[in-house]
């Protein structure tokens, strides 16, 4: 191993592929995020090139790579795989070495993971098979509202009078949104209601412990979700510098252990 040796974590999610490069001091020296698309292998290769370039190293400097996420088995350059549950846990504990409850809101699924103060996993929950409470839900609702999904965070934060939605189901929620549009409700109020719906779906999955960490792409792009969750639970929530990368960082930390 040399000073330039690196460890790579590739998190191939349903929506985005995230790649993290750690140096031997566990510092994040390179990363990249790309839409996963339909060719997970090609996307992960592109992400690797970009992240290595950012880190100023070559593939020859990689000691180990661990891949995770839905497409974890499609990563050509990985030497082992781990589930995203383990990787998010490892990544979050790296940034917040405490007994924590992790809320990860991803494109296709959510996770609630509980760790003890040694970082050991106590239990975890994934959402059921439907899209309620995930990034896919917000994308579908953005279509109904005819707004770009990236505008949702600003719109929600402008709301003066949140419109609540009652349904579990994405299709039924879509109907509720249409009804609210028909009744002249303001878009920011509807969007805040959609955010609230996402938070409620996640909170229904498990109870929370004292220290809560939020991660995932949806959190990264919609920090107002964190603010709303803090208001709901009445305490501060911890968020890593790059919340979308914690799974990839966790994978890189596993790579550092040689697995």
């Amino acid at each position, binding site marked *: 191993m040399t000073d330039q040796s690196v460890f790579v974590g590739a998190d191939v999610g349903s929506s985005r592929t995230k790649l993290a490069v750690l140096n031997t001091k566990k510092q994040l020296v390179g990363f990249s995020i790309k839409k996963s698309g339909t060719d997970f292998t090609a996307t992960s290769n592109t992400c690797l090139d970009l992240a290595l370039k950012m880190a100023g190293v070559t593939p020859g400097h990689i000691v180990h790579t661990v891949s995770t996420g*839905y497409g974890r*088995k499609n*990563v050509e350059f990985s030497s082992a795989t781990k589930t995203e549950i383990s990787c998010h846990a490892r990544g979050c504990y790296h940034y917040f070495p405490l007994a924590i409850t992790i809320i990860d809101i991803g494109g296709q699924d959510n996770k609630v993971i509980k760790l003890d103060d040694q970082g*050991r996993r106590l239990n975890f929950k994934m959402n059921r098979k439907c899209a309620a409470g995930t990034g896919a839900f917000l994308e579908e609702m953005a279509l109904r509202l005819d707004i770009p999904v990236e505008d949702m965070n600003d719109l929600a934060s402008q709301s003066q009078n949140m419109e609540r939605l009652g349904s579990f189901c994405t299709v039924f929620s879509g109907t509720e949104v249409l009804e609210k549009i028909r009744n002249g409700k303001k878009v920011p109020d509807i969007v805040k209601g959609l955010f609230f719906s996402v938070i409620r779906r996640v909170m229904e999955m498990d109870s929370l412990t004292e220290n809560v960490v939020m991660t995932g792409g949806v959190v990264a792009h919609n920090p107002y979700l964190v603010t709303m969750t803090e208001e709901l639970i009445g305490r501060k929530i911890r968020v890593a510098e790059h919340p979308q990368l914690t799974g990839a960082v966790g994978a890189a930390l596993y790579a550092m252990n040689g697995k």
Partner: protein
Amino acid sequence: MAEEKEKKRLKIKATGQMQKIMADYFYELNDAARDRSKPIAWCTSVGPAELLRAMGFLVHFPENHGAMLGATRMATDMIPEANAIGYTPTICSYLTADIGAYLKGVTPLSKAYKGIDSLPKPDVLVFNTNQCRDVQDWFAWYGDEFNVPVIGIYTHRGVKDVGEALVTSVAQQIKDLIPTLEEVSGNKFDMEELKRVLALSRECSDLWQKVLFTAGTIPSPLTFFDGTIHMGPAVVLRGTQPAIDYYKLLLAELEERIENHVAAVDGEKYRIYWEGMPVWGRLSAHSKLFAGLDANVLASTYCNSWIFSDFDENDPFHSMARAYTQLFIVRSDDAKEAYIKRMLDYFKVDGIVYHDAMTCPNNSNCRYGMAQRLEKETGIPSLIINGDLNDLRMLSDEQTKTNVEAFIEQLEERKG
């Protein structure tokens, strides 16, 4: 790229003999229905089969047929037929698959057994609500369809202690079936014959228990997935000699494995208890998934449900009533949790997988906080997977896979 490993899963040599006695059973039913040579009863899987056999009936079990529809992955195409006539997608998918298959005029028996075109027409339908209310609705539909009597036992449910009053009530209900059965079959009830059949059923049950409990050995010679296949005779042939002979054969094979330290799952590292119904259409996939992670799902409440240790030929009605009320599915959560704790201990379990089957609330015991309570009391981690016994529209394979892999990673962390 990380390679997926395919683990060696040992095949059971006795399987051929089981297939033979099951074939004999289905052909005997088919011939009797065709020739009208013997009366035929349809019975729920933990219904009073011993009484029916003792009165000269051949017995068909619609739940067994439902499971076959699931295992052959025909069920998902049949269920919509029943949905369309008012049986919703969220009720028992054995019921909807079975009625749907009847409406479409198909059966997996035709593929498995040449010459069998349809189910044997019943002369009477006999249920016990010890499992659920759905069996009653299911049989009522066929009662109308075939214009034959539908009779049954209404078991008390959510029972903590199986007291005398409950047993007496069920025993009387079993006796009350006799006049109708005599009329339909044309045979007089014979107490000596009931005692003979019950003794055979008890022997079958004892052997089946011994088979399942071989999994208490480390490494286990048996998997839950084997159990779901090899329980066939305990369900449909209990009370007959071929079932007894078969389980003697199977037990000998498993005991030989134990003697030679042969594992059903090569390199068994994690011992898992399965709580709930199997996902019939994914038996092989789930078996491979767990084995690939060095995990053996080796015991279950489900396969244990055909152990009737209370059967006593010297007190037939009372002991049948007790056995069919002692069943796990009939009991309160207190009683169920005490039972599972005994099993976790006996089978030296590292983790529990609960299958929350969308259409079977009665076999989905994780819905009222049981998983959390047991985890707190025993310290044994658990995982809940969402799915269904038969309706493959209700499950996500990718989610199941990720959940199971993550669970085994959690167990790996604990073992260090």
